[in-house]
C-alpha cells in the first residue's frame, strides 16, 4: 500500500529528474542537433569548451555576480530582519514593505527596473541628479551593467531571506540578551557575541540557497540587458540557452551544463567545509 501511494511521485521523479540528470552527462559526450543522429564524440565538447572564450567570460561574470550578490544579500536581509524583530508601532507595515518585492516575477521586476534605471528619465538618476551626482547609463555600460543586475536581484531576493532570518531570531531567548546587558554588554557587542553565532545555521542556509540560485542567473540578464553590452552580463545559463535552443547544439550545451554543475558543486562543498572547519575551531 505504501508503495502505491508514493508510486506517482517516484515515477515522475524517475522520468523527469533522475533520467534527465543522467542523460545530461551522456549527452555532453555527443554531438546532437535534433535533426541528425546522435554521434559519440568523446571529450571533444569539453576540449572545445576549454577554448571557448565567451563561455569563459560568462563564468567570470557569474563568479563576480555571486561574489557580490551573496554577501550583500546576507547583510541586507539580516539587517532588515533585526530591524523588524524589534517591537515598535508600525512594525507590521515595515515587514510587509520589505517582503513584497519577493512576490514579483523576475520579468515584471526587470521591466520596472528598466524604467528606474533609464539614464535620462529614470527615478534613480533623477534622485542622484538632485544631490548633484550625474548617474551613469546603468544598463548600457559594461562597468555598471552587472552591478545593476545585482541591485535588481537584491531588491527582489532580500525579503524571502529576511523571513528566514526573522524565524531564526525569534528562536533566540530574550533572557540571553538580558543577562548579557546585566553583565554590561552593549547592543553592538551582544549582536556580535549572541545574535551572529546563534544565527549561524540560518546564515549558512541562506548562503547555500542564494549561491546555488545565483549561479543559475538568467531571467534578469535576459530581460534587462540581453547578456550585453558586449558580453558583460552573459551568464552560463544564458549560454546554455543560446547554444542548446537557438543554435541546437544540444551536445555542446550539455557539456556547458555539466561544467556549471561541477562549479556549483565545488563551491557548495567548499562552503560546507569552511562551515565545518570554523565550527571546529570555535570548539
Amino acid at each position, binding site marked *: *500500500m*505504501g*508503495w502505491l*501511494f*508514493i508510486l*506517482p*511521485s517516484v515515477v*515522475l521523479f524517475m*522520468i*523527469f*529528474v533522475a*533520467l*534527465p540528470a543522467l*542523460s545530461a552527462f551522456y*549527452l555532453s559526450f555527443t554531438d546532437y542537433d535534433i535533426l541528425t543522429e546522435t554521434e559519440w564524440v568523446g571529450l571533444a565538447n569539453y576540449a572545445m569548451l576549454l577554448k571557448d572564450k565567451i563561455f569563459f567570460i560568462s563564468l567570470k561574470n557569474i563568479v563576480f555576480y555571486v561574489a557580490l550578490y551573496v554577501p550583500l544579500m546576507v547583510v541586507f536581509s539580516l*539587517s*532588515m530582519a533585526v530591524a523588524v524583530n524589534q*517591537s515598535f508601532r*508600525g512594525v507590521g507595515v*515595515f515587514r510587509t514593505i*520589505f517582503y513584497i*518585492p519577493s512576490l514579483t*516575477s*523576475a*520579468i*515584471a521586476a526587470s*521591466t*520596472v527596473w*528598466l*524604467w528606474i534605471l*533609464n539614464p*535620462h*528619465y529614470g*527615478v534613480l538618476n*533623477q534622485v542622484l541628479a*538632485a544631490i548633484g551626482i550625474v548617474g551613469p547609463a546603468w544598463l548600457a555600460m559594461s562597468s555598471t551593467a552587472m552591478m545593476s543586475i545585482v541591485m535588481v536581484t537584491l*531588491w527582489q531576493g*532580500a525579503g*524571502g531571506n529576511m*523571513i*528566514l532570518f*526573522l*524565524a531564526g531570531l525569534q528562536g533566540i531567548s530574550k533572557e540571553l540578551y538580558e543577562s548579557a*546587558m546585566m553583565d554590561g554588554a552593549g*547592543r553592538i557587542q551582544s549582536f556580535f557575541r549572541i545574535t551572529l553565532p546563534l544565527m549561524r545555521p*540560518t546564515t549558512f*542556509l541562506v548562503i547555500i540557497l542564494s549561491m*546555488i540560485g545565483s549561479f*543559475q542567473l538568467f*531571467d534578469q540578464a*535576459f530581460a534587462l540587458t540581453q547578456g550585453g553590452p558586449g558580453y558583460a552580463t552573459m551568464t*552560463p545559463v544564458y549560454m546554455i*540557452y543560446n547554444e542548446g*535552443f537557438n543554435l541546437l547544439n*544540444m551536445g555542446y550545451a550539455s557539456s556547458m*551544463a*555539466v561544467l*556549471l*554543475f561541477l562549479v556549483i*558543486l565545488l563551491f557548495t562543498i567548499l562552503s560546507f567545509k569552511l562551515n565545518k572547519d570554523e565550527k571546529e575551531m570555535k570548539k
Partner: protein
Amino acid sequence: MKITKTLNFVEKIFFTAFLICAGIVMFLPFYWSIITSLKPDSEIFSIPISWIPKTITLEHYYNAFTTVDFARFFINSFFLASFGVILNLFFGSLAGYSFAKLHFKGKDLAFKILPSSFMVPGIVTMIPQFLLLKNFPLAGGNNLLGQGGMGMLDSYWAILLPGAAGTFAVFLMRQFYQTLPDELGAAARIDGASEFAIFFRVYMPLTKPAMAALSIFTFQAGWNNFLWPMIVLSSPEKSTIQMALQAFSYNRSTDFGAMMAGSLVAILPMLILFICAQKHFVKGIAFTGMKT
C-alpha cells in the same frame, strides 16, 4: 515612533534612519511604476519628476491590453499555476503521508534517494527534459519509439508534468504528517476504513496549514516561471503572462507607461494572494527554512 525603551538617543536616530531608508528603497519601485502607469506620456518624461500625477489616465492599461492579448495570457498563466498547485498538493500529500505514516519495504532507501535531487541544479536537467518531452512515445503525433511528432512540446503537459515531479512537495508534506499522531489512523483502521480513506478523510484535512504554504509556493513558482515555458511553448496563443510581458517590453522599449501597466498586472495575482494569505506566507517560509 515608539522604540524599545532601552535604545539611547543616538541609537534611536540611527535605527529610524535605517528603517526609513530601507523602506523607501524597497517601496519606491512600486510607487514609481504605479504613478508612471497612470500618467499621460507628456508627464512621464517630465523633468523634474512629478511625484504626484497631475492628470490620471488609464490609457496605458487600455493600450497594453489592446496591443497584446494580456487577458488571454493572464488566464493561461492562471490555469498553469493553479493546475500545478493541484498536482503538487495531491502527489505531495500522498507520498508525504506514505513516507511519514505507512511501513513498506524499501521506504528508507527511497527516502534516501529523493534528497539527491536537491543537489541537481535545474539547469542540468533542462536539455534532457526537453528532448524527453519531444520524443515522448505516443504523444503529440509520435509513434511508439517517440518519433515523427512534437511529443509533449508546445502543450501544457510539458510544464505541468516536470513541475509535478518536485521532491520539495513530498518533503514539506512528510515533515507535517510526522507531527500528527499515529493513533488517528489506527482507530479508523479498526473501524474498517480503507487505507486511502484513512489518508483522505482522516489525515489530509488536518494538514491545511502545510497545504496552504505548499499551494502558495507552487502558485508563485508557476506564475513567475519564465525560462522553461519559453523553451517548450511555441504557439504564440499558449504563451504565459511572463513571456508576453518580456516580449512586450522588448518590442516597445520606450513605451514605459504601458510597460508599467503590464508589469503591475503581472504582479497583481501574487499581491492579492499575499494579502489574503499573509500568515501562511510567513509561516511557510519559516517552516521550510527550519526543516531543510
